[in-house]
């Protein structure tokens, strides 16, 4: 079929207000109910607070840690580590992946290394990275990098294959040289796929940083959980888990925001 005139965005059908609010409302009620049952169960002594403290107790712990100023420190530490490691991984994986996707020879060169790296879980790098980098920040970055890099690279290579070969043909016909084709066609053409791949990678980057912090750290959400466990502060442990979840969701939102900015033609 041919693409006929497609009216821009405004055509999205407007649903009545209550209809649009219905599903979020159901979600809100179910979330509230869960909290109430949880609170009630611990309040009635059905659940031992050591195993699972009540939501109110977790909230109290949150307020207490916020007042001490440690809460924000943990969040910032982990977020920063994810950001740095993830950015380095992306900045290496995107150009390299574009080149590998474009040239079969370069793919043949890198294939053995990639095949070796790909199956390695980032956790398996922790001992080696501690030897190489010590317990400091660069060790955390390296774990995030090692966890995110190889899969990101494969995503980028895969994404370059999604570019319509006709566009490459058209570009060459207009005088584009191989380097122009990579920069002007392959990169922008595969960017939507690259970004959706990187979004998955962002989740993996978080897994990496938390595991690294569980093993060796003095700060961060992973450390907070581990430290809570040491002192039998189950509320701190659960609070740490809640914060991880919320922070990951927040980074995902930020990522989506940039995604829309980078791809205005997709809207």
């Amino acid at each position, binding site marked *: 079929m*041919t693409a006929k*005139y*497609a009216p821009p965005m405004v055509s999205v059908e407007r649903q009545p207000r209550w209809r649009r609010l219905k599903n979020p409302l159901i979600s809100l009620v179910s979330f509230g109910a869960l909290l109430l049952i949880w609170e009630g169960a611990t309040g009635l002594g059905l659940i031992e607070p050591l195993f699972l403290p009540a939501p109110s107790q977790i909230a109290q712990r949150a307020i207490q840690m916020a007042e001490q100023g440690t809460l924000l420190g943990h969040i910032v530490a982990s977020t920063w580590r994810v950001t740095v490691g993830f950015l380095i991984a992306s900045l290496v994986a995107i150009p390299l992946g574009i080149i590998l996707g474009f040239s079969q020879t370069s793919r043949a060169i890198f294939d053995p290394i990639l095949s070796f790296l790909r199956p390695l879980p980032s956790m398996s790098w922790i001992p080696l990275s501690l030897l190489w980098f010590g317990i400091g920040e660069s060790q955390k970055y390296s774990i995030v990098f090692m966890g995110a890099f190889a899969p990101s690279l494969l995503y980028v290579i895969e994404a370059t294959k999604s570019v*319509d070969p006709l566009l490459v043909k*058209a570009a060459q016909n207009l*005088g584009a040289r191989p380097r122009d084709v990579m920069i*002007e*066609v392959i990169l922008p053409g595969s*960017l939507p796929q690259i970004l959706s791949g990187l979004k998955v990678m962002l989740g993996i980057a978080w897994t990496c940083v938390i595991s690294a912090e569980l093993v060796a750290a003095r700060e961060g959400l992973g450390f907070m959980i581990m430290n809570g466990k040491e002192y039998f502060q189950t509320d701190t442990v659960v609070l740490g888990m809640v914060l991880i979840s919320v922070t990951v969701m927040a980074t995902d939102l930020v990522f989506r925001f940039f995604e829309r900015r980078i791809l205005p033609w997709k809207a």
Partner: protein
Amino acid sequence: MESLTSAPAIELSHVSKHYGSMQALKDVSLAVQEGEFVVIVGASGCGKSTMLNMIAGFDRPTSGRIQVQGRENTGVNPECGMVFQQYALFPWMTVEDNIAFGLKMKRMSKAERRNRAQEYIDMVGLRGFEKSYPKALSGGMRQRVAIARVLANNPKVMLFDEPFAALDAMTRQVLQEQLVRIYEQQRKTIVFITHSIDEALLLSSRIIVMSARPGQVVQDINNDLPHPRNADVQLSERYLELKRHIWHAVQAEVVRSIEAAA
């Protein structure tokens, strides 16, 4: 005229093309002079597109020789600007940037690119859509962007691969007339592929009828319908005469290709 003394704009000598055991083109010889508007008609699968791809340098003949401006292609030849049936616009670029793409490849300055692009945006009647993305345009508008993109690059030869086949009848007619206007102004050498005899008659200065696979030239007809030309030409006596003549040639080939497929 200069074209009489210098080499033809495009020259195919004994060109054959095989894909494995399938023969797409068989011993095609054809010389296109500068400023000619050659339309190639033929049944589907007669190797028309193959021919165009080889002229543009996307593909090489299995045997024989293709010369553009007296030289054989060494790779994709930007002097042969191609308009594709599927538009092939870059979806991440605005209309303006799409049209200026070839100029950017020539490392022309941004200001100059903008000026040149605007000239061709106006020529194809897309003023006001400079900042639109292809997604927001109709098929007819997209194809006009594609034509402007090739024109802006100022190639020696323009190649059209069934460019209006995917458009509705009315849009097609508007674009055909627009292309006739552009040709009358610019007198570029054009090779245009279609399976519509009416389109061929309206646009061309010369019509080549190809046989069913393997493609061969079966008729070479001079289209002497007068310029300036518009859709009214279809009502003239000469038009009907030419159409009847071409249809007889094409019909035999269509029947042959249907029987071959059966």
